[in-house]
């Protein structure tokens, strides 16, 4: 049976709606006759057939109601949009028809008055205004309430909706009323009246009590001319190309794909031992197909974030009404997709953040006016993909967060000590709102201010491997940034070795790898009261020794130190491991009950050789070792303050050294990777030095030879290179040393007439040449950019 078909069409065939006093039992025959999917020849199936119809009705109605919420809010803003109105009307009409059919009289009577009101609107006898919208929204809430009652207890519940029906009836007669109390938990205050209307009068006496028991049945064929509107056709087209699939089946497929990925990884490991070329070709093919299959199955589980955002216009509207604020909601990137399980997991946290921003963030119109801002506040939701993660930003232009206020509050509530408060940067203070039991709302509203919430938001987001960060400028607004992985099931991870065992570290947490050898290894780890630290480009990085954390013995003492630089919870630390293997896609499996309590591990996986490896929980490790670093954040904060002061665009630059003194910069956006090659790996292709890299031949360009003219690069054991990739072609620019990555607002001091230099900039108060990568690459290989037009930097 086609589950997406709107029952509309069945009701338009001139079927008389059944009298509402009929019990479900007595209408089975009608169902069997008129409803596709009910088997007419098997009377024993009637009840279960009925259940199936009811279930379908519930699922479909709930979907439609979500759409309704949004449509109504849209309609209020564009009252002339007839097709929105038509779509609302259709939905209510469908619900009404179906419940008359199944025998839900209460629901039918509500939908009926709503439909009458809507038909008046549609025919232009009434124009939409806030009281009407509120009443219609309350109607949607009432319908939702009844539906959930039906779902849970198979009856319509015993709430009395006569007041709501009265309101809807009188509105339909063109009388003005104060909005009825919606069934939802928010209580709208005085309704904001726009346009030149009189303020709403108190509730008009409803002169005739509407009998909620026997609504006049709608004449058959009431559908007006929008039957063939484009939207209708579009939805028909959709039903033909769409299927509903049970989520359990998708989960199972996902598991199987996970198994396949593991088997693929194992086969690839045997690959080098076989010298049969057809075998190699087959494995290569298997590899590609598996990757594509994995992506395909992942996509089936992806849902646009709009599915949860669609509720927000309504949430924000109700909130604004109840707090007497004006809020304009903007949404960007609604079709950004992420895994279904994640969508469900972030629904509540996001709703909470949005409510918070509307409640605490955006000020009342008079306060905004006094501050010289437009009366209407803006709340903006942005979602976009970046680096294998989904970023969600919730931006408001409200009052922002006052760090001082937070500090005092935190001291008062003993969240921090006086001494800690002294040492905290503004940004850290602002992030205290995530501390448990912290709330800055001056008074407890029914919206927020109970001091639970933001901490729960943070834990829920971190539970799914995400991070949340808050930035605020007092008086100007607040931005919350939530980053979450695209999926939880299959993730890229780095394998490290300690104590002879392998552990996987999710790449999401990984910043960089540092290898210290010989002399360096001995010297560069310093101790502050016994706590090991390493100076990473001038910042102190606290170190954690993995073998100590896991209480395992070192397998062998080497004179090298491998530091895996990780980020957890906004802090950075270095994890010292005995060896670093490579990265591979791993399938995350949960740990059994017996091991759930170990905070150092988040799960287990099966590696390419079939052995089990544990997945490290980076946040758990950091907490266990109590790693806190503020330096980098401070540095970032200071530089960002500087930027705001100068008001220039910031750019992320990679800084590297050339020759003895030279400093050069290249925008990080042009850098594909940083790689290190051994001198011994360099081969010749003609007179061009090349290396084999990821199955391709990559030319090397020696920058120091080009700019300084020295030949030092030939002496070095290893070469630091910047890999630059365009359209699948790569070149490696050989630098003498990689110095730093900085975010700076730059102004190019002067143009340059030197080849390969765009100009000179001042970075970190030092003169630095800005590299013209394209010119250099073109110089080296004039055909590199053929067949492509390139945007210049």
């Amino acid at each position: 049976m086609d589950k997406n078909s709107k029952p509309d069409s069945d009701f338009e065939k001139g079927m008389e709606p059944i009298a509402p006093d009929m019990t479900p039992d007595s209408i089975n025959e009608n169902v069997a006759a008129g409803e596709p999917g009910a088997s007419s020849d098997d009377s024993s199936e009637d009840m279960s057939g009925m259940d199936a119809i009811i279930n379908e009705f519930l699922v479909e109605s709930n979907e439609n109601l979500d759409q309704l919420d949004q449509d109504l809010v849209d309609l209020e803003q564009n009252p002339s949009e007839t097709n929105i109105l038509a779509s609302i009307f259709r939905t209510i009409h469908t619900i009404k028809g179906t419940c008359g059919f199944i025998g839900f009289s209460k629901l039918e009577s509500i939908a009926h008055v709503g439909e009458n009101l809507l038909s008046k609107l549609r025919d232009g006898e009434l124009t939409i205004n806030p009281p009407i919208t509120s009443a219609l929204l309350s109607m949607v809430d009432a319908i939702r309430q009844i539906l959930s009652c039906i779902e849970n207890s198979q009856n319509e519940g015993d709430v009395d909706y006569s007041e709501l029906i009265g309101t809807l009836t009188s509105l339909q007669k063109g009388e003005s009323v104060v909005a009825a109390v919606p069934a939802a938990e928010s209580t709208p205050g005085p309704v904001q009246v726009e346009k030149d209307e009189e303020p709403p009068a108190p509730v008009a006496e409803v002169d005739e009590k509407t009998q909620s028991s026997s609504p006049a049945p709608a004449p058959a064929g009431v559908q007006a001319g929008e039957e063939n509107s484009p939207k209708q056709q579009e939805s028909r087209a959709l039903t033909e190309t769409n299927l509903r699939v049970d989520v359990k089946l998708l989960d199972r497929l996902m598991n199987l794909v996970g198994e396949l990925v593991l088997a693929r990884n194992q086969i690839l490991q045997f690959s080098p031992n076989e010298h049969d070329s057809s075998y190699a070709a087959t494995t290569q093919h298997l590899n590609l197909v598996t990757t594509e299959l994995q992506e395909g199955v992942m996509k089936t589980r992806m849902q646009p974030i709009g599915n949860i955002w669609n509720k927000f216009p309504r949430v924000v509207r109700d909130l604004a009404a109840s707090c007497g604020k004006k809020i304009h909601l903007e949404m960007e990137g609604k079709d950004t997709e992420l895994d279904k399980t994640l969508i469900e997991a972030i629904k509540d946290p996001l709703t909470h953040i949005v409510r918070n921003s509307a409640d605490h963030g955006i000020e009342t119109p008079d306060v905004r006016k006094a501050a010289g801002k437009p009366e209407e506040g803006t709340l903006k939701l942005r979602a976009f993909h970046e680096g294998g993660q989904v970023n969600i930003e919730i931006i408001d232009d409200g009052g922002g967060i006052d760090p001082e206020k937070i500090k005092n509050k935190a001291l008062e509530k003993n969240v921090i000590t006086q001494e800690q408060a002294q040492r905290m940067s503004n940004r850290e203070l602002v992030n205290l709102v995530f501390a448990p039991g912290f709330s800055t709302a001056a008074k407890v509203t029914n919206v927020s201010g109970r001091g639970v919430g933001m901490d729960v938001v943070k834990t829920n987001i971190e539970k799914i491997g995400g991070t949340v960060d808050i930035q605020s400028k007092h008086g100007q607004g607040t931005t919350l940034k939530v980053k979450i992985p695209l999926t939880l099931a299959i993730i890229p991870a780095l394998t490290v070795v300690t104590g002879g065992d392998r552990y996987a570290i999710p790449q999401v947490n990984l910043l960089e790898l540092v290898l210290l050898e010989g002399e360096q290894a001995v010297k560069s780890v310093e101790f502050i009261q016994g706590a090991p630290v390493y100076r990473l480009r001038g910042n102190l990085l606290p170190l954690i020794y993995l073998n100590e954390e896991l209480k395992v013995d070192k397998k062998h003492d080497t004179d090298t130190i491998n530091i895996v630089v990780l980020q957890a919870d906004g802090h950075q630390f270095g994890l010292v491991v005995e060896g670093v293997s490579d990265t591979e896609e791993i399938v995350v499996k949960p740990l059994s009950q017996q091991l759930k309590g170990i905070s150092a591990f988040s799960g287990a996986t099966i590696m390419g050789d079939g052995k089990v490896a544990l997945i490290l929980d980076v946040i758990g490790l950091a907490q266990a070792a109590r790693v806190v670093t503020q330096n980098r954040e401070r540095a970032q904060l200071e530089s960002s303050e500087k930027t705001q002061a100068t008001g220039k665009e910031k750019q992320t630059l990679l800084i590297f050294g050339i020759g003895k003194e030279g400093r050069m910069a290249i925008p990080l956006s042009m850098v594909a990777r940083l790689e290190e090659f051994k001198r011994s790996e360099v081969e010749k292709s003609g007179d061009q030095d090349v290396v084999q890299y990821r199955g391709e031949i990559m030319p090397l360009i020696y920058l120091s030879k080009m700019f300084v003219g020295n030949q030092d690069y030939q002496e070095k054991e290893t070469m630091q290179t910047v890999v630059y990739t365009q359209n699948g072609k790569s070149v490696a620019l050989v630098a003498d040393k990689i110095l730093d990555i900085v975010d700076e607002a730059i102004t190019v001091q002067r143009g340059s007439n030197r080849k390969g230099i765009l100009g000179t900039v001042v970075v970190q108060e030092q003169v630095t040449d800005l590299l013209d990568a394209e010119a250099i690459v073109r110089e080296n290989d004039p055909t590199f950019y053929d067949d492509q037009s390139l945007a210049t930097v």
Partner: protein
Amino acid sequence: MADTKQFCTFYLGDLFFGVEVENVQEVFRYQDMTNVPLAPAAVRGLINLRGQIITAIDLRCRLQMEDWAEGKLPMNVVVRTEEGVVSLLVDEIADVLEVPEDDFERPPETINEITRELVRGVYKLKGKLLLILDTKKTVHVGSENSVAGTI
């Protein structure tokens, strides 16, 4: 004919144990496993069983018996419990026995405390006693770990 029950049996030292057949998924020889640092002592490691990761519980350790002799490799009895599928490491796997219910008796008070806690009862067979393990209690290894500074 009196009621009978079937048990999958195995040895641990000179003790003869049994687990209800319907709770046993499979038995297999020793397989390499991955050590889990910080885990409770009775957890010996993780095994990849055809793509399923299962926890192996060291029954000797669980019953406070002495460790396996050097070079002696234990065998796996994989049991299904409410807490998932777990492997029990044992010395030797024996037959599936059908025993009459009448021979059942509560464990005597004199055996060591932990064994009495995990053994549901004893079947008096000819020439030996069959101790029946309560799998649920056996695999419930407290995950109270001693990670320093765990919050």
